[in-house]
Each structure stands twice: as structure tokens, then as C-alpha cells.
């Protein structure tokens, strides 16, 4: 996009445009589920009919990082898996967001030992953390809404307009 909203600054048009773009973005999140462990079971439950994540516009999983803009890191990440996670993250196009799902992804959980990464934020930046082992589906939906709020309030810069 050749849009240069930054130069428009705080002008009326600029703000409205930002709002519109952000609004569109927050309701069309394409997620890449990086599912490894037990949290994945709860993730499944959230995605399926009972809790139905599609009500929030983040329904369709994309299993190619190039087509996704929301990375869900679900479950424990071991040191052996860490390079894979990093690669997946780097392959995603801007703008991109990361949700750390569950205690393990956020902090290593109770696996404080030789093989577990102590939180994915030591490897990639994270936007929203979801606590719980595993988090309840309600917590996941709440996190999604938090993320949408964050997206709505974001300032557009050159990088995120791409």
C-alpha cells in the first residue's frame, strides 16, 4: 500500500483512516495456531461450536505463516522447538501479533527444567498473555478482545502499513 498516513499526522482524515483500517484489521484476524501440547485441547474447545471463536472474527486458521497475522503459541515450547517457532514468527508478514496461550508459553509453567523455554517472550515479542494451565475458553475469548482493543488503538506507522 502506498499510503503514508504518518505524514498526515493527527489530521482528521488521518485519524479516521487509521480507525477504519484498524477496525477492519481487528475483525479479520487470520490465526496461525502453533499448537504443541495440552493447551491445544482447550484451544480446540474454543475454536469449536460450543465457544465458537468465529463470533469474534478470528475463526479461520491458516497453516502457512505467510497468510497469517496472528500467531497463537499454544502449549509448551521446548528448546528443540524454539528455532521452529522463531522461524515461523519471522516468516509472518507485518503487521503481526502474538498471543501466548497458557502458563507454559508465557513462562515455562511448572516445567522449570533443562529442556523447556522459560516463556516464549525470551524468543519473540508477545502482545497478549493468557494465564491458566490450561486457560478456560472464556479467558481465551477475553484475550482476543483485549488484542482487538490493542489493534483498534494502534497508531499506524510505515511498518504496519507495509
Amino acid at each position: 500500500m502506498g499510503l503514508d498516513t504518518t505524514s498526515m499526522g493527527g489530521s482528521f482524515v488521518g485519524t479516521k483512516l487509521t480507525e477504519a483500517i484498524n477496525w477492519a484489521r481487528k475483525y479479520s484476524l487470520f490465526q496461525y495456531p502453533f499448537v504443541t501440547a495440552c493447551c491445544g485441547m482447550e484451544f480446540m474447545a474454543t475454536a469449536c461450536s460450543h465457544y465458537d471463536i468465529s463470533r469474534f472474527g478470528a475463526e479461520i486458521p491458516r497453516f502457512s505463516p505467510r497468510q497469517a497475522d496472528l500467531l497463537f503459541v499454544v502449549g509448551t515450547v521446548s528448546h528443540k522447538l524454539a528455532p521452529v517457532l522463531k522461524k515461523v514468527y519471522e516468516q509472518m508478514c507485518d503487521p503481526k501479533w502474538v498471543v501466548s496461550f497458557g502458563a507454559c508459553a508465557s513462562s515455562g509453567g511448572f516445567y522449570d527444567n533443562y529442556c523447556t523455554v522459560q516463556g516464549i517472550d525470551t524468543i519473540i515479542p508477545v502482545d497478549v498473555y493468557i494465564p491458566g494451565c490450561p486457560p478456560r475458553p472464556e479467558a481465551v475469548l477475553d484475550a482476543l478482545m483485549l488484542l482487538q482493543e490493542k489493534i483498534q488503538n494502534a497508531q499506524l506507522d510505515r511498518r504496519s502499513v507495509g
Partner: protein
Amino acid sequence: MSQYVVQRLTERFPDQILETHAFRGDDTVVLKRDKLLEVLRFLKEDAGLNFDLPVDLTVVDWWRKKEPRFEVVYHLYSLGKGHRIRLKVPVDEDDAVVPSSRAVWAGFDWYEREAWDLYGIRFEGHPNHTRILLWEGFEGHPLRKDYPITKRQPLTALLDGKQE
């Protein structure tokens, strides 16, 4: 588990058996390493024993508690006869090698690789003697008692200012 198995083994290999005992109904035979393969083959092929199902293979590390340091533990089960047995083979730290049982039961293939990976016991004659759960280049064997639980060996660089 069955007393019969212990009896039969003692009759057949009197000089290979170091000790037998039973605890809570689990019969255990402690074996020498020399003719281990022969004993395992016998256990599998003898019509009266017929241990066809490889159940489990693991290692116990008796660091600073017992000599020799390691015990390789086999659990076997016979589907036809319904009996079980536990075999233990003590090995020294400087000579932590046992013959591979991969040729007797295919099912011990990965168990032996895992024992190498986590305990550093070598299985002589294993066709693919590599690490399995951890990666090549990992230093040490984490389930040995002298490996500190939080000694991490990251493969990726950490973000600035973050620590493990």
C-alpha cells in the same frame, strides 16, 4: 510376574544370574552382562517362557548410592502365558555399555536410543545409535543424577535483556 520364569532361568543360566528377588509381586532377575543377548533370546524363544512383548527399557542411576552406578532395567511380558519379568543389568560408569536387544525385539529400538540420550548408556550393535529426544550437540545426559535440573542449552539467541 511369575516364579516359574525365575526358576527356569536359574536352571538354564546358573552362572549368569547374580541375584533374584521379588517385591510386591514383581519378580526381578539381576543378570551379568556377558551373555545378555543369549538370555534375552532364550526368554523370547523358549516355548515355556515366550516373552513376545517388549514392555519397557530404562536405566536407574545410583550416583553415589551404589556401585556399579547404572542399572539397565528391562520389563517383558508374554501375551500367550500372561507372565511378566523384570531384568536388571548393572553396568559401571566407565564401561557403560550393554549389547543391543534391537535384533531380538524391534520394539526396544527407540527405548535404547532414549536410554543413550538421557542416561548415556551405549548399546553395542544398535543400528542407529543417535540421540532421540534431545538434539545432536546437546552436552551431557540430563537424567543422570549429577546433571543439574535447570542447566539449559538454548538453541536460539534470547531477546535483549531477557534471561532464562
